[in-house]
């Protein structure tokens, strides 16, 4: 067997590579993806990157301005909060909460959504009825209000935020997967697998799922931006991660009481949320364009 034969990609691999090449050509989207990766690196290596201990208080540095303003100090580039904690270090550590909640919620919700959507779309009947009615009911709640209601009952904390968001988030990938499965289940290759006696589980997971994964991936990236804003909103309201753990939403809330004298306390964490969410939104639009053949021309 020649080397060329060994390295030749399979049709699905070549499609993936072609789509990724289309994505990379979109400079704005590729740049945004790099920015997202920088945030991932910040979260992963926070202890190595953060210049200060994020929870170390120093009342002599209370509301110290950023380095370029009078009274600022380059050891605390973005200034300090009301307890004299370094804002830059807290932003770097805060990225861990946003990333962790965003990735975990989207991963769990997408996994549940895929299984429920496949079952509803492929099996139909009472399975579809139960899943679809549950989805309809959950869609009857405005997202933030549903999460706030649950957090009110379960109490604040990282684990509860993830649970509260997963409870509703799974319905979105579920709807996408169900619709895609309904369109795919009558395809010839599925019929062929059925004729060969393949089990329902095999058909759903091995035949249908690989062919409907692209839209699910695109939806997941879009949803991650939303989940990050929701987490920040819950933390802003005091229902998220509890002090002294740094989270961007809570940092913005902390600075609200000092907007008259210390603009930097709220501004920089908010800017971090905006940059990450914007980068995720632009990157996901690029992904959608690359993975949807209608946009290739």
């Amino acid at each position, binding site marked *: 067997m020649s080397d060329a034969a060994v390295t030749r990609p399979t049709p699905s691999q070549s499609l993936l590579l072609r789509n990724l090449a289309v994505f990379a050509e979109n400079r704005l989207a590729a740049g945004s993806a790099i920015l997202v990766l920088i945030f991932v690196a910040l979260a992963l290596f926070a202890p190595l990157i953060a210049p200060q201990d994020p929870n170390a208080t120093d009342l002599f540095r209370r509301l110290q301005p950023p380095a370029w303003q009078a009274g600022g100090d380059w050891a605390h580039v973005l200034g300090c909060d009301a307890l004299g904690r370094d804002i830059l270090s807290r932003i770097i550590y805060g990225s861990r909460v946003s990333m962790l909640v965003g990735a975990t919620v989207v991963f769990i919700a997408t996994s549940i959504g895929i299984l429920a959507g496949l079952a509803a779309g492929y099996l139909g009947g009472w399975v579809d009825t139960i899943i679809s*009615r*549950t989805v*309809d*009911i*959950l*869609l*009857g*709640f*405005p*997202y*933030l*209000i*549903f999460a*706030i*209601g*649950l*957090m*009110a*009952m*379960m*109490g604040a904390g990282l684990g509860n935020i993830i649970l509260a968001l997963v409870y509703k988030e799974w319905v979105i990938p579920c709807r996408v997967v169900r619709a895609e499965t309904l369109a795919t289940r009558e395809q010839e290759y599925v019929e062929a697998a059925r004729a060969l006696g393949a089990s329902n589980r095999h058909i759903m997971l091995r035949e249908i799922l690989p062919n409907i994964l692209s839209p699910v991936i695109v939806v997941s990236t879009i949803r991650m*931006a939303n989940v990050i*804003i929701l987490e*920040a*909103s819950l933390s*802003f*309201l*005091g*229902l998220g991660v509890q002090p002294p753990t740094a989270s961007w*939403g809570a940092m*913005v*809330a902390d*600075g*609200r009481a000092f*907007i*008259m004298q210390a*603009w930097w306390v*709220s*501004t920089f964490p*908010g800017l971090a*949320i*905006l940059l990450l*969410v*914007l980068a995720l*939104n*632009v990157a996901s639009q690029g992904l959608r364009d690359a993975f949807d053949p209608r946009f290739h021309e």
Partner: protein
Amino acid sequence: MSLTKLVERLVQLVPVLLGVSVIVFLMMAMTPGDPVQIMIGDQNVSAAQEAQLRHDLGLDRPAYERLALFIGHAATGNFGESFYYKRPVAQVIAERLPATIELSVVALLIALMTAIPLGVLAAVKKNSVLDKLATVGSLLGVSLPGFWFGILLLMLFAVQLHILPVSGRMGFATSIKPITGFLLIDTLLRGDPAAFLDALKHILLPAITLGLPMTAVLMRVTRTSMLEVLRQDYITFAEAKGLSRTRILIRHALKNALIPTVSVAAIETGSLLGGNMIVETVFGWPGLGRLVVDSIFVRDYPLVQAAVLLYAVTYVLLNFVADILYTFLNPRVKL
């Protein structure tokens, strides 16, 4: 759309509303801690009084009976007594509701008045600087966290420029006897332009903050649908007839391009409900959203439960209205 179809759609709402009520009930039922103990707090009560309170609240009954009672009571607007305010929940909510409705309506108006002209202009001047700015603006609009945007507006207009107030619905110096509870209307009805201006200044920043994501979404929808309409044959025909560009845009294109905008606006009005909690907290707006957030911290569960149910029912009804509007405006779509 026939009346039968409308009734059919209304009937379909029933299981969703029931399901929503069950979930809200379960949220409360699964709450750790004993509601009776929360109500009693540090008061000194006997075991008999405690048992009586438990009986009065129906907590000594099985869960399915309590669920049926909850749904029955909710249907008649009876949500029990607030733990914190020691008054009927419905009464406390009714007092705060006008402030939230007023804020939402002004936010909706601001969003519509900004998004539609900008969306049309972006479509008409496709690929121009204006179009690109509108695209960037709409992307920013959906990416900006509302609570942060509100604080930025406060820092600029209230702290730096001193032209708009920081919080509340009205200044301390102004007072108006309520008629409808909507201050913008009440001040006009009382013939007090100074108070009207004061109320307007107070509502401006919260309404802009609340309406921003909606503006971004509506602008994109209007732009896309306007571009689609402008490609239609009847527009080319109108141009061939020699009609003026403005007439074609307003009389022929906009009318059809607005169909999805109106429908999305109805859906997005539902999303304003969630934003209310954030915006009311940032601007100290004394509405239902802030009441809910405050009630969470004092563990006033009946109030939180009633408010969550009210929000959810409103949201379901708004989505229903969006569906109906879309069908009504676009006769090609059948329910």
